[in-house]
């Protein structure tokens, strides 16, 4: 083989050869037409049959500027220089159901099976800042996650687990500041040093108004709670990830890949701006911001999304906010396979979907991953199905070899042009949101909400017309579907016992200390002070989740969404 520029790399020759090839293609397709008139990604982006060096040239592709090296700006190829050779992605299965004791057992099972970090799912009442004895949460206690009403529950949730030795992720947003306070108070009680408290609070309230729809107060005060936690933790808990800016729920609600990317990054920019407006320096807090994306069915589109996400964030942080610390530029992300892609029909097929999605997340360079269980469209997962989901990651990690190489799609004509396209389209959305006055204003106008609803409806219509296929649902249906899966059943006894425990807690606690602590939360809220310190004191005085949230609601009001569709 000769070195240097060879004839086969001459762009003019390539273009000419391509034109000849296209003629032949046309002739062959005249005889045997393609299976469809349009070939699109899941998000309905048309994809080319073939990409060549000419496409990269047309895109103005610049390797060092746009792709570069892993662990280096703009991080298109990943945030670590040797990626999974140094450390595999964190296998983190989201778990939570029933009582704190039930979930504690599941946590211990997952740790014993080789899981590397914990991830907590809370039930609907907890996510909305209501205690288990609130009439609003009737029937929902312990159903979609664990019920945590007080520091007592938090203690039971992590019983026998040293908070200095695990990393914990907590998926909660509206009342995140209260749940964080319980966790920090528990860590203190266990004698854990603040720098050893490691984990992630989801704490991404903007995507709640956009997609997940669990909130406590209106948008503006809610964003200031987020900023409070960022300010508090960046001083006292330097290794805690304060916000996990999440596209997952946006995607699950029906967004396209581009919408997921754009709205998530725009949410991140809104938090950055709120912190800067409060006088914080970008490099003091940005390194602890983390992300969370969906990994859906369309293999290439998802990989491109992760690559584009890192590049856009790095450039925004460096160019727009003048961050100097490389850790501020890095988009570190968790990923979860797409719950919405799973089918109740022929549920074992979901194992395969999850494996394909997990592979895309890993090839996209995620830092942490949750793989869904096959039965999640029917109920919360059983121990057995959670194990298969975890083993899926372990098989990819240990047997497939994909973790041995960094960003193997880097340089692919198709992948690089797709990454550019996803980036361009996302930036156009971000520009639109900037023009509206930022994400808070856009949410108040209902913009991301209606864009997502449109995409969800568009996709459903495509399914109805068989333009998109879900195996087992609108193609390859089973003649007679027998549901043979055992599913997890949460009974109402959890609700009953939580209600009893709350009554006992209120009876036993030191009333004057509780009153005093709640008064201090109220005063801090009324005077625009950082709420973290007073809330930590309140939960130590056995104030319940709802008691703190009601105090906040009484100062800031409640959020109501217009029921548009």
């Amino acid at each position, binding site marked *: 083989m000769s070195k240097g520029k060879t004839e086969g790399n001459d762009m003019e020759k390539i273009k000419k050869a391509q034109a000849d090839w296209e003629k032949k293609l046309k002739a062959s397709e005249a005889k045997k037409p393609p299976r469809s008139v349009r070939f699109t990604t899941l998000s309905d982006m048309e994809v080319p049959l073939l990409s060549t060096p000419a496409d990269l040239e047309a895109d103005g592709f610049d390797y060092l500027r746009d792709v570069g090296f892993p662990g280096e700006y703009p991080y298109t190829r990943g945030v670590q220089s040797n990626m999974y050779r140094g450390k595999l992605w964190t296998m983190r299965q989201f778990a939570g159901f029933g009582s704190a004791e039930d979930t504690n057992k599941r946590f211990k099972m997952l740790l014993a099976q080789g899981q590397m970090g914990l991830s907590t799912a809370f039930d*609907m*009442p907890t*996510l*909305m800042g*209501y205690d288990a004895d609130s*009439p*609003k*949460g*009737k*029937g*929902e206690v312990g*159903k*979609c996650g664990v019920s945590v009403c007080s520091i007592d529950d938090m203690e039971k949730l992590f019983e026998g687990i040293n908070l200095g030795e695990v990393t914990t992720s907590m998926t909660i947003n509206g009342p995140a500041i209260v749940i964080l306070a319980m966790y920090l108070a528990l860590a203190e009680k266990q004698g854990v040093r603040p720098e050893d408290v490691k984990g992630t609070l989801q704490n991404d309230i903007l995507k*709640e108004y956009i997609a*997940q*729809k*669990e909130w406590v107060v209106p948008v503006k005060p809610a964003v200031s709670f987020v900023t409070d936690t960022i300010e508090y933790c960046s001083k006292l808990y330097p290794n805690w990830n304060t916000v996990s800016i999440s596209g997952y729920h946006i995607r*699950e*609600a*029906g967004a396209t890949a581009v919408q997921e990317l754009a709205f998530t990054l725009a949410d991140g920019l809104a938090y950055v701006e709120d912190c800067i407006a409060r006088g914080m320096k970008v490099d003091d807090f940005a390194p602890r911001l983390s992300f969370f994306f969906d990994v859906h069915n369309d293999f290439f589109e998802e990989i491109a999304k992760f690559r584009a996400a890192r590049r856009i964030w790095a450039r925004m942080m460096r160019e727009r906010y003048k961050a100097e610390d490389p850790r501020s530029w890095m988009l570190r992300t968790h990923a979860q396979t797409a719950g*919405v892609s799973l*089918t*109740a*029909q022929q549920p074992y097929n979901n194992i395969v979907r999850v494996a394909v999605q997990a592979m895309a997340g890993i090839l996209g360079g995620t830092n942490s991953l949750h793989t869904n269980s096959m039965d999640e*469209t*029917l*109920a*919360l997962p059983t121990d057995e199905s959670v194990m298969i989901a975890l083993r899926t990651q372990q098989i990819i990690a240990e047997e497939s070899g994909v973790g041995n190489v960094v960003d193997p799609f880097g340089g692919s004509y198709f992948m690089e042009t797709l990454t550019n396209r996803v980036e361009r389209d996302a930036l156009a959305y971000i520009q639109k949101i900037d023009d509206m006055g930022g994400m808070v204003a856009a949410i108040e106008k209902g913009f991301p909400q209606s864009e997502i*609803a449109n995409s*969800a*409806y568009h996709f*459903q*219509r495509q*399914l*109805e017309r068989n333009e998109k296929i*879900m195996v*087992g*649902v*609108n193609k390859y249906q089973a003649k007679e579907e027998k*549901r043979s899966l055992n*599913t997890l*059943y*949460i009974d*109402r006894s959890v609700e009953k016992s939580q209600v009893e425990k709350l009554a006992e807690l209120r009876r036993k606690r030191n009333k004057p200390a509780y009153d005093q602590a709640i008064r201090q939360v109220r005063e801090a809220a009324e005077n625009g002070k950082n709420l973290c310190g007073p809330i930590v004191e309140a939960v130590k005085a056995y104030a319940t989740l709802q008691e703190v949230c009601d105090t906040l609601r009484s100062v800031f009001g409640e959020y*109501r*969404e*217009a*029921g*548009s*569709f």
Partner: protein
Amino acid sequence: MHGQKQQENAQSRIRVLVAKPGLDGHDRGAKVIARALRDAGFEVVYTGLHQTPEMVVNAAVEEDVHVVGLSILSGAHNALVPEVVAGLKKAGLTDALLVVGGIIPDEDIPFLKQQGVHMVFTPGAGLGEVVDYIKANAPSRS
């Protein structure tokens, strides 16, 4: 064309309430269904999120709907549905067609039907299926 117009007029008299009882925030399905029903020519009222059973009943009575559709993905159906049923009965809206959609385990469906739910749609149900069911079963009222 003329026939279609007539059909639309007839259907426009069917009023459907799409409701999200409980604290469950998963509203993708409810919104998609609401649009599909509207596109099929029904008059659709969507309650928005986080409704108590009482609020759902009040909306159904106020709008005098023919159909009440409950969307529940949180597992709380066995607690919430009987309360909606009791409320509708108490309010005298006894002929309304009651349908439930969401994550409903097969083994819970007989209980819901026994409570008075006419139909349960689970994941994978088609929009056309829901529209056709309502067309065929909505009560006729003047």
